[in-house]
């Protein structure tokens, strides 16, 4: 079997062929050594020799946000078309890695719950008061069955009525009082 990995021609960015920078107003941008971006699928006779080019503002997107937040980062343009993949952030160092990490952290901003202060369920809505790494917060949730995603055996992602997300990295790491409050949903 011809390896389908080769067939897919995945394009990986590393510090050898990509360089991060910030735009004038502080957005993540990238220069890369790659063939020219084809604007037109059918145009023929285009020069395909790779060269350094300025891609301008780019968007990072985690492909496996729960399992491997630092691996397999998709680099996208503003319409969501992929330029290529960062296999692991450790393929970059120094300022480059900082920019990637900063923008991923901004995009995936999600308070991690460290303590459940109170949890009440009333008429199909549950009301949460929690302590998170971003401070004390309270939110309400509808239909706990659908809005608490069990990402793994110990990890939960909660979505409130507005669509805000809250994470619990490891339910077993919670103090026993908090654990007993959420035990029901595990």
């Amino acid at each position, binding site marked *: 079997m011809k390896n389908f990995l080769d067939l897919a021609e995945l394009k990986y960015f590393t510090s050898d062929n990509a360089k991060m920078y910030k735009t004038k107003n502080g957005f993540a941008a990238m220069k890369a050594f790659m063939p020219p971006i084809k604007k037109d*699928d059918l145009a023929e006779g285009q020069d395909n020799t790779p060269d350094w080019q300025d891609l301008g503002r780019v968007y990072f997107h985690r492909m496996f946000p729960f399992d491997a937040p630092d691996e397999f980062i998709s680099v996208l343009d503003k319409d969501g078309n992929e330029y290529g993949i960062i296999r692991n952030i450790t393929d970059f160092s120094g300022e480059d890695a900082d920019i990637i990490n900063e923008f991923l952290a901004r995009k995936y901003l999600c308070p991690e719950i460290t303590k459940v202060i109170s949890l009440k369920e009333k008429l199909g809505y549950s009301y949460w008061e929690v302590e998170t790494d971003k401070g004390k917060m309270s939110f309400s949730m509808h239909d706990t*069955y659908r809005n608490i995603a069990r990402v793994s055996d110990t990890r939960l992602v909660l979505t409130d009525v507005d669509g*805000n997300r809250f994470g619990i990295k490891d339910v077993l790491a919670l103090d026993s009082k908090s654990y007993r409050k959420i035990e029901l949903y595990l």
Partner: protein
Amino acid sequence: MINLEKFPAAISEYFTAKGIDMLGALMTMKSDIGADSVYKDVYIVVDTEYVTVAEGTVVFKHERIRSDGNPVRAEGFVEARYERFMLSELEEIKVEQLISTGRVTALRDNEPVLIFNFSSTYKHDAGLFCRAAESLKKDGKIDEEKLKDSDYEKNSCPKCGRRYPDPDRKICPKCMDKVRLIKKLSKLFLHYKRYILLILLSLSLISMLGAITPYVSNQIFYADVLKEGGRYYGKILNIILVMIAVRVASLLISLLNGAISAKVSAEVTYDLRKNIFETLSRLSLSFFTNRQTGGLMTQINNDSTMIYWFFCDGFPYFVLNIVQLIVFMIIMFIINPILTVYAFVTVPIFFISFKFIFLIFDKMYAKSWSRRRSFNSLIADVLNGMRVVKSFSREDDEMKRFDKRSKLSADADADIGIKSAKIFPMLFFLLKIGSYIVWGIGGWQVMKGTGGMDYAKLATFIAYFGLIYGPLEFLADVSNWWSECLNSLQRLFEITDANVEVKECENPVTLDKVKGDVEFRNVSFSYIENRKVIDNISFEVPSGSTLGIVGHTGAGKSTLANLLTRLYNTEDGEILIDGVNIKDLSFETLRRSVAIVSQETYLFRGSILENIKYACPEATEDQVIAASVIASAHSFIVKYPDGYHTQIGFGNKELSGGERQRISIARAILKNPQILILDEATAAMDTQTERQIQEALNRLTKGKTTIIIAHRLSTLRDADNLIVIENGKMPESGTAKELLKKKGVYYNLYKLQADALKTIGIED
């Protein structure tokens, strides 16, 4: 002025100090995430020229306790970022939706610039900000009416001003009140008052007879019949006959009551289900796309049973039990007040421990329920996907998965079983302790002859005390079913109160004869907030012409069809039929004149004939056959043994994708509308059949407006005009020739498909 957030005094002062005229502000709003992605207080003021953003923290500068004991707080604002944007410099102001937050950005000197960040709580406000800023840039003013029209006021809670999380359900989770629920409940209650009264009456008759029995069989029997000198001394046979008579009467009324309940139960559940179903079918499509239909169905069934139970079992028994309890207690009190007090000593302990135990069980039941739900969903999942499971031979893994969840669910159930086997007998023993006290003290009183006690009185007292357990146990449990009923009712009202998004306007325009001019004017639409699927699209289809809509999958073509049939309302812009906004058209006119054959063909269970006649039940057989012939369906239908009466659907004849499409086309043809939309209606057919149908359709649709949506360009051969949809925008429109000359998107698509033909050796 649009006041999305009323600023605290300190903030207004802060802005005024910065030289901003707060009275001249056109829009004020708040957000909660700073430019550095940290939670902050963000205040935004929009006036005619500038957007001003201030970020920081509202702090209490100092606090002074007034003489009356109330604190006076002076608020201050600690600034972290202050930025002004000149509106005229900003281009492409838009929302970038991130994972659970978002940002509003714009282009300034062709460089992207951040205006502010927000969490999902403010996503609606952010969208509103963009629209307001755009209209301000374009027209120099904010059209408040238009923004209001896009539901910012009517979709917020009148009490706290927050928007409802789900616009379909006007329920504010923050200030949902039980009073309203109970008010509505009483309305429903009045609806069923006849039944409830009937049941109450028969129940009270039964309990009255029940209350007499102990008196007759104890007091009268021992004191008047067996005792020497008693009123009925020695008349044992008579008293037994009386006892039998009372028993028989009570039995008869019980039988009657059973029959009444059975009838009422059937009637009320039927009524409730009908009501819920009726409301459901009136709801807009978006209600259903947001929910799982399977879950909805079980919910309707469970809830209507639950509510029936509330009205016909729960409530009457509740009243009855309370009355019984009071009556028995009074009787007992009359017989012997001191003994009564002793008898009830353990009751409060019983109630308290019952409440406590219930809390434990409530949690266990919820756990078992959620485990069973996950286990059931696995079964449904695997059974539906059996084909995939088998083709990748994953049976063993599925077995393991099933086993794991099944075990978890069984564990939870076993836990409940064991705990309840341990706890409840002990609990009821606690209650019974009272009776031992009664035996002891009562017996002692009889022996001593104090308190006016004799054997007959004690026996009567004990008999009544025995009757009291039933009501007590019921009342201990009452709060549990009460909360469960409230839940069911809440869900019921969620459905009945759901806001029908697509509503007929108050004075709808009815057109007798629709010509078929269709016009889209600056239409925008999004299914999910801030994610535009259709972005400012305008086109016209003159009556009688054919419009082709081309574009990649997911470009938004089908959404256009959904908007024209008004399954959804447009977010911005308007759609006109014969110059009338479809929002003003009566549903009758709209549905009569527009028919759609969509890519998801749905056929109901039943015969092919019924399915074709679905939109037009009064059609004759000739018409049905003619429509089928045009749709190229006739030829395969007649091959079936049962012809047009062939049953389709679950467990019956399974039709192929192409056959289903042809039947849905026949359905639309039979309706013979002035405007026909074919949304990939022939995609599952071979090109030859498609050709046949098209030629037949061409003859039929002469003089009618046809909109054909397709990605296969050959489908659009006969279109007078084409529009190209890409990422919700319309980059091109014109005749096929004009578009080819433009060498744009259409040209590319055309070339791609022509190339495909070339590779297999067919040149044009």
